[in-house]
């Protein structure tokens, strides 16, 4: 297997190789020993081939603390443009914020995310969006492990036939439940912060033994006899 990888890797730019290299190192076992990268993307829509990312927002969570100056907020130059969703996100095509090309943005994101666990609300969408962008630039998919606050939140709820659980819970519902201000909702970095605080509250409720246990808690509980 390894020689396929080696052969291919010659074609990849240095920043990708640097990124990939970091996965040779193992993640710490303890939940608290890890740095989590909480991310959110704002996109022009939900279509993975047609739509594009407008902005990536991410923050680092180390030992229950978030350092503001270490957060990431990258706006991406747009060719494809859908006026409907831009209205929601308030990011206009030629806004005054500094913008980067998609490749630059990916490069910055990979350098930032390193081998840390990526956390997001319904994270699979954000990951798929980033992967689609990587593919467009001739790069492989993200290698990071992921945690979904949407799935984890469900595990914090009571196991009882009395409570009617929903299929999925929105970030708004989580914010209400944990009394998190929704002031910057629908900006990438603002949503990432809400997700991060909800993530911390969830971890406190679930009390995972270690990182592996936390990953397993994304699945519904198993019942044995």
């Amino acid at each position, binding site marked *: 297997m390894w020689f396929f990888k080696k052969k291919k890797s010659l074609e990849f730019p240095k920043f990708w190789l640097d990124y990939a290299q970091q996965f040779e190192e193992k993640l710490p076992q303890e939940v608290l020993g890890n740095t989590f990268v909480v991310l959110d993307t704002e996109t022009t829509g939900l279509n993975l081939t047609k739509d594009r990312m407008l902005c990536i927002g991410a923050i680092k969570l180390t030992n229950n*603390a978030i*350092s503001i100056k270490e957060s990431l907020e990258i706006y991406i130059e747009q060719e494809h443009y859908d006026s409907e969703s831009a209205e929601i996100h308030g990011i206009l095509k030629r806004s005054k914020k500094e913008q980067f090309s998609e490749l630059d943005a990916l490069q910055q994101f990979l350098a930032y995310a390193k081998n840390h666990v990526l956390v997001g609300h319904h994270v699979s969408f954000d990951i798929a969006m980033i992967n689609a962008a990587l593919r467009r630039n001739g790069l492989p998919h993200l290698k990071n492990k992921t945690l979904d606050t949407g799935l984890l939140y469900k595990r914090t709820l009571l196991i009882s036939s009395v409570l009617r659980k929903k299929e999925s819970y929105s970030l708004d519902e989580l914010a209400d439940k944990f*009394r998190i201000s929704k*002031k910057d909702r629908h900006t990438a*970095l*603002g949503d990432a912060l809400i997700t991060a*605080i909800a993530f911390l509250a969830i971890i*406190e409720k679930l009390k995972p033994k270690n990182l592996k246990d936390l990953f397993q808690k994304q699945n519904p509980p198993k019942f044995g006899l």
Partner: protein
Amino acid sequence: MKNTISERVADFLKKYPPFNILAEHQLQKLAYEVTIIHKENNSIVFAEKEAPHNYFYVVHKGAVALTKKGSQHILDICDEGDIFGLRPLMAHEKYKLQATVREETILYAIPIEEFKPIALENHQVGDFLIESFASNTRNPYSIKHRGKLYGVSNDGEGTAENKLLDLQPVRYSTNLVTCTEETQIKVLANAMSLNSVGCILVTKNGLPIGIITDKDLRNKVATGMVPITKNAKAIMSTPVITYPKELTITQAQMALMKSRISHLCLTEDGTTDTPAVGILSKHDVMVALGNNPSVLMRAIKRATDSKRLRTIRHSIINLLQGYLEQNIPMGLVSKIISELNDATIKQVIQVCIGQMETPPPAKFTWLAMGSQGRGEQLLTTDQDNAILYEDVPEDKKEETQSYFLALGNRISVELNHIGFEYCPAEMMASNPLWCHSLQEWKEVTSHWMGNPGPDEVLLSSIFFDFNVTYGEKALADELSLHIFENAKKYPQFLTHLASGALQNPSPSGFFRDFLVEQDGAHKDFFDLKLRALMPIIDAARVLILSHSIKSINNTAERYEKLAELEPKNQELYTACSFASKALLKFRTKQGLLHNDSGRFIALDQLNKEEKIKLKRTFKTIKEIQELIQVRFQVKNLLR
């Protein structure tokens, strides 16, 4: 540099001193350097004698208690927007207090290196800090009252606290109700009732010249001495005794005692030649001392927002702690604390109704369920509540339900803010399943009683302890009546309810040792609620329901009533009543100790005497369970 988050942090800080004095660019720069820290309940931010951190802290959400080592006495509680841990950084000394998180808290840690140059450069910021350090208060500009313990003992610790108190400026009401000399007595009395104040200030050209209190109205008008048609001048006390507004609590106490009056008038410079700025009543001073239930009750009734109610709740918890330390009988304690909790909820409901755009479209009652309904909620546990409203015509149904759902939602959010956690099973009035009209509730309860599966039994065991907190009592009575009729109609329901009461796992094992949890977050802890409290509570409910006794919800009181009704079982019921009180006390003490609901007990932390006490209740639990098993023929039930 700034980003979306730093802008949000700056927006928050800007509301509180000294950050409100900073220039926009300074604040933005400072906010960019902030670290957001999440602390779980009971974790320590810094310990006494710890070397100073590189940061000082601002509470964004939650609460942090400052304590001195070896003492349970809380010196201060920092709430939203309060700064702590700054002084040691400025003075380069070690922390003198311990900061413990009292609930899930988010802190903003601000690096001292960034803040110091700003403080040195900006005189106003420097002044604020000097003033706040000198006066020993966190924030000299907006003083909130501090909770003090019930019956502080006379040791050194206590006097140290009193010293702090001496320096505390008093909180007075700035809502001045005034009239002129010519105002008619009837008019001014109306104004006093309208504003619910006990005194009115008589002013002339903006300066205070006299004061009229409730006492004046009673002694001079109601006795017929002065006819009600006369004006203010005839009954006012003059000249007004005035004091400067920078009064400390101790000074205010002295002043009130010295001149034997119930209200002080505070003016700009303390003389009658400057306009009045506030009125200070005896009650304000009592609240500041905050260790008396009747004073807290009045404070609750006067509170107009949840922020104020939140601080009152802290005082209630302190009061509870004091009661337990002094070994005051549990029955009395639970009554007082439940009354205070009830009043708090009532006040929240009242405030929320006021905030709705229209008054309620129909009569309704707010029902407290579960432990709160039974009057056994000493600590803040979950909110279990429901709304019951009167039947409305078919065409108004939807509209009415959506109104009450919106109201329920608002109330439950406010309660959560004060410190009542959300119910994990969402048994709250904001849930459409727990917000019904009388007819709907009758249908729902009939369904539960007619088809008693495990869920229905569970739901009814929670709901049937309902108690009216607010609103029309008649509606709840009608529902109770309906439930009793149904209990007679479906005798098998009681059997199922009894079987539910027997399903809780046993508290002790074969060798009479405690059974602890086998796994999960509470491994090796003893589940006091599930294994000891629930069986005894459930048993009381079945028995009292079988006797069709309504409006006795408290478990201990239920057993007392049962002892009265069944003299032959008197001994057992009295024992149950004692056991339920003892267990409740256990739970409360454990809860206060660990600042949680007190449900799980670490057995190795109990002393011998406590363990024996706990075990003694198990025998009673076993006996009452046997009684239920025989009486309701649970054995015949296919399980």
